[in-house]
């Protein structure tokens, strides 16, 4: 397996992991180019973490193979580990240690003892004021930052972030993404998993995972164009559930979903608001109001899962 492009830093080919008769990751292939922010999107238990663990040689694949920075994930895991950073879902911090001690510890484990490098990481992540606080006393947003700090203290060229923003408030999430961009701009390639659909919009490319399978990979715009062929409509009408049931029977409607006090319908390309309105009126549904809207990545997911 030789990379055909110089700038490909991660190659996964047919990666598969079975636990007993459960297939956690099913024949997953993708590539990551240097400098990308690849978002790996999927619900809990869809195989995101297992994929990362196989790339890093933490788990042996049941089938398939992968390379990171040209090193084989199984045979040359140690070579990979020196060059990559990994922030796991659980934020691997030692509660009894202060922020600074946690950082010093991980630096030491990477063989770094230059205090300037530590200071640089602290400054980059704005951890100056929490250096002497115990990790256990930190709010979640700060734990997340500290965990990121421990993952980048050795200046990795690739960063694997597993659900880094889980449970963190929107403000802190945006700040965190700011940091991710900053790292990406300095040349770090990033693979980030998330179950927030809106975060996928922040990535240069997105992969959709469901039940162990990688359903699609592409830029958000590409995916919206390729997977949501047709138009997306906000449909207001009463009664809501009857309308939902009715729209599901319409041939021009590819997908319809409930969205709060209205419905969201994806239709064939040719159809217009008029088509829909007429159909709904004819079915005796009331207060019909239809408005075209832009597709979201959630529409992409629903449409991919429906196929």
């Amino acid at each position, binding site marked *: 397996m030789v990379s055909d492009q110089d700038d490909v830093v991660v190659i996964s080919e047919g990666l598969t992991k079975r636990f007993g008769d459960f297939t956690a990751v099913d024949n997953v292939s993708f590539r990551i180019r240097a400098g990308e922010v690849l978002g790996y999107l999927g619900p809990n238990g869809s195989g995101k973490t297992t994929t990362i663990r196989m790339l890093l*040689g933490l788990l042996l694949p049941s089938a398939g193979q992968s390379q990171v920075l040209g090193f084989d994930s199984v045979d040359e895991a140690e070579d990979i580990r020196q060059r990559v950073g990994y922030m796991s879902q*659980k*934020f691997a911090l*030692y509660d*009894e240690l202060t922020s600074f001690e946690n950082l010093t510890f*991980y630096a*030491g484990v*990477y063989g770094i*003892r230059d205090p300037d490098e530590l200071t640089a990481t602290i400054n980059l992540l704005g951890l100056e004021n929490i250096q002497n606080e115990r990790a256990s006393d930190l709010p979640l947003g700060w734990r997340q930052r500290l965990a990121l700090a421990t*993952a980048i203290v050795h200046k990795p060229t690739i960063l694997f972030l597993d659900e880094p923003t889980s449970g963190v408030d929107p403000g802190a999430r945006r700040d965190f993404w700011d940091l991710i961009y900053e790292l990406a701009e300095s040349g770090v390639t990033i693979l980030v998993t998330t179950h927030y659909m809106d975060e996928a919009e922040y990535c240069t490319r997105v992969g959709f995972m469901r039940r162990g399978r990688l359903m699609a990979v592409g830029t958000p715009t590409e995916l919206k164009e390729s997977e949501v062929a047709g138009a997306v409509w906000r449909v207001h009408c009463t009664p809501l559930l009857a309308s939902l049931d009715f729209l599901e029977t319409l041939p021009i409607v590819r997908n319809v979903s409930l969205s709060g006090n209205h419905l969201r319908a994806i239709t064939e390309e040719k159809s217009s608001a008029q088509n829909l309105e007429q159909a709904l009126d004819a079915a005796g549904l009331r207060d019909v109001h239809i408005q075209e809207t832009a597709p979201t990545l959630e529409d992409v997911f629903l449409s991919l899962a429906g196929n």
Partner: protein
Amino acid sequence: MVNIRLQSIIRKEFIQIIRDPRTLMLVILIPIMQLLMMGYAATTDVRNVPLAIFDQDRGMEARALLDAYRAADYFHLAYDVDSLDEILSLIDRGDAKAGLIIPPDYNQQIAGKGTAQIAFVLDGSDPTIAATSLSAAQLIAQAHATEVMAERLARTGQGAAALTPLEVRTQVWYNPDMLSSYFMVPGVIGMILYSITSILTATAVVRERERGTIEQLIVTPIRSWELIVGKILPYAVLALINTVEVLALGSWLFGVPIRSGLGLVMLTSGLFLLTGLGIGLLVSTVANTQQEATLISFTTLLPSIFLSGFFFPVEAMPRVLQWIAVVIPLKYYLTIIRSLLIKGVGVDSLYTEILALAIFGVSFILLAAMRLQKRLD
């Protein structure tokens, strides 16, 4: 050689130990508690057995006999009663464990040429106390009888030399007072070294797994051996501190000697630590939670204590148990530590045991190192 990675692990582990004051307190206090319990409460020494006296004679000679009982500290002359019934009810209630009955004609018989008979009744419900009290009561009485006889012969002008044709001169070595603390304190050292190292090491590794930090460590360039050494070294130090603690307390409270010198004791204890650390690491490769780790370690602790000769001599056990005892590392360490503390022997008489410990320790750690791979599955 300075290894930053190893240093980091060790430093981190020490910080964690110090920042968890409750566990640290337990680790320091448990040996003291165990030593006090084993040294005082679990003693098999019989002292101050409460004795009820029914002296029907109350003459000079009877007093001399009672003085002899009083002088030996086996008995505490607790009750002076006026009837046999009183003795019975005291023993029934458990207030007295034994009764001594001196007949009304005691003085007369001693003064004359007859044989005085005294009666000793005792509560046999606790066989240890009963057996020891019985032999003590007989010994005291016999010694007193010999004295009386000597006096009698002296009065008639004969020498004491021709008194008995045979005399056994017993001599108890190493522990002349046969103090059970001499036996118990080395045992406590062994038990503590074993339990602290195995339980603490196991939970320290499993805790990393529970919190997910092990995953982060695996993806660092740290080597397996650095992780293992860094993990076990702090706990080895802690256990050695415990050893010194128990030795010092043992010598201060119970007068247990260190006849072969501290150096040799610490060296062999260090060797034994490897076994406990190895077992702890092995347990950590099996257990998923700290609770599981503690339970599994504890399960290995029980047979160790009972089959190692901690309380009961291995030689007195059924053959099958003796075979099993061959693979109990604590058994070898107890032999070593008891010999070093009490007998004051040199290494030359303990080669087999030391070799056994080395084999156990090295193979447990190697086995654990093989199982503790830098991988999650």
